[in-house]
């Protein structure tokens, strides 16, 4: 099948939607489909062969922050040309409610269109979605996908209509192998954490408390922490002075280094206290084959198969977390067992599986429909 995919955000900026589009496109190509992606990108950015650049995205205030988006008549003309030349059987737009390429594609295209909604839409934006110009574009969509139940709920309640939920996948092969960071995990063992440090729901305070209990009992045990933070000093001052030099803060890391971090530790910890719908980071650790200790919130219970594919501890309980971590650090046999179980469990979240789900949506919308074309009226700027 010939598939055209639009990405609303700049390809050269890391982000969840861009990663989703990349992984989906690659999984579909692996399945033997012909895929073309159009995305905003700087002219000098090296792009994969399946990506067409739509020009530089313009930083512009949107919804209280600055977003880099593609809009205007030049972008519209590029999208038109891409659709005209592409001869796609199906057009798959991502985040069409954002003022960028996907919305433009809906406007200029006719034929089978599938849309994926990634975020729960805040109330302030709902008025705008009902706004005539946008409405016309959204009404052309034949099949809708939401990446989470929360995204689906806002769609149903505020825009109307329904969507199938197909969660994000994990590109497991990207995580399988990587060189550990120099000197890691080291003799005394290492625990890893990934995520926003200043977001309390990510649970770092619980892990620090547990480390305070474990530290004296396991000399040489270190903690490797990667993620964005505002105030590193404030964070380190929460643990006793003697333990501080055993905590290594990496700050925000690249996608590549993230995989290396996962391969640099003996145990990975997901202490999130709530607010996770899936736990992508935990699934990535599983894909790297790292034994995982996670809080027993619903999302982790599900991905870890109720504790078969990783240890669960009582949510928010630092003593229980310390016990679980201590037990694993002292038992290499159990770690190997969990690693194998995690790799097996995460396979069902692999992009190849997810892409097949998306493909069946394509198959449904192309039934009895012609190929994607440009409309006569929409977006002709000559």
């Amino acid at each position, binding site marked *: 099948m010939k598939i055209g995919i639009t990405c609303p955000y700049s390809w050269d900026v890391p982000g969840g939607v861009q990663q989703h589009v990349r992984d989906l496109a690659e999984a579909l190509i692996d399945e033997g489909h012909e895929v073309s992606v159009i995305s905003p990108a700087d002219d000098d950015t090296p792009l994969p062969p399946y990506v067409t650049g739509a020009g530089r995205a313009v930083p512009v205030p949107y919804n209280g922050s600055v977003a880099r988006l593609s809009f205007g008549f030049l972008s519209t003309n590029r999208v038109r040309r891409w659709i005209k030349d592409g001869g796609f059987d199906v057009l798959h737009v991502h985040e069409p409610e954002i003022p960028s390429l996907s919305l433009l594609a809906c406007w200029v295209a006719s034929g089978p269109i599938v849309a994926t909604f990634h975020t729960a839409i805040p109330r*302030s934006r709902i008025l705008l979605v009902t706004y005539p110009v946008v409405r016309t574009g959204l009404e052309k969509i034949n099949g809708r996908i939401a990446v989470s139940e929360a995204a689906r709920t806002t769609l149903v309640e505020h825009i109307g209509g329904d969507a199938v939920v197909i969660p994000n996948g994990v590109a497991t092969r990207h995580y399988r192998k990587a060189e550990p960071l120099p000197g890691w995990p080291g003799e005394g063992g290492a625990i890893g954490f990934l995520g926003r440090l200043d977001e309390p729901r990510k649970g770092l305070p619980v892990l620090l408390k547990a480390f305070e209990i474990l530290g004296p009992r396991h000399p040489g045990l270190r903690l490797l922490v990667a993620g964005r933070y505002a105030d590193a000093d404030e964070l380190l001052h929460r643990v006793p002075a003697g333990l501080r030099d055993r905590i290594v803060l990496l700050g925000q890391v690249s996608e590549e280094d993230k995989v290396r971090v996962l391969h640099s530790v003996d145990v990975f910890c997901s202490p999130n206290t709530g607010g996770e719908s899936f736990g992508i980071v935990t699934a990535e650790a599983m894909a790297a084959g790292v034994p995982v200790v996670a809080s027993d919130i619903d999302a982790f219970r599900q991905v870890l198969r109720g504790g078969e594919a990783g240890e669960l501890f009582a949510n928010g309980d630092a003593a229980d977390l310390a016990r679980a971590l201590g037990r694993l650090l002292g038992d290499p046999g159990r770690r190997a067992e969990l690693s194998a179980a995690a790799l097996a469990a995460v396979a069902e979240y692999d992009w190849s599986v997810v892409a097949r789900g998306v493909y069946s949506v394509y198959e449904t919308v192309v039934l009895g429909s012609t190929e994607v074309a440009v409309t006569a009226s929409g977006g002709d700027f000559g």
Partner: protein
Amino acid sequence: MITDIVIVIAAALFMGVYVSWRAGRIDRLHARVDMARAALDATLLRRASVALELATSGLLDPATSLLLASAVHGTRDSTGTDRPRDLAESDLTRALRAVFSQPGFLTSMKGKEGADELLAEVEAAAHQVFLARKFYNDVVAATRLARSRPLARVLRLSGRASAPEFFEMDDSLVAENTSTPLSL
């Protein structure tokens, strides 16, 4: 003796008149601040409504329309975003600038019905915001200076009126990193 009394009374009278003139001046300045603020509000509202008209005109692509409409929406007090007015108005300025500074934008609008008038109106409204804010900040500066003088402070000549605040926002018609003016 009598001349002394006359001089004292005259001095006291003069002081009284002077102080009341100073108080009256501060009062008048406050009134001018109110008027300038009302004028500024009116120009901001006018700019927002013209920008919204452009957004809904059908002249633009839906992405640009949505951007502009969303920026206009953000300037209304009733939104749930809690973004302060000055930041929200600056957002609208930047959104307009992003639209107008696209290379070839004006050429692309040529020949479309009503486009020239509407774009000219947007530009005029944006320029009026620039002027109204300048005048408002001038009178605020004068008022704050008058209030800060020792006599005004000791005798509390400004009464219970609170000191007026400057209104800071990005209202520049010229794009930051190029020297392309927004103007037609």
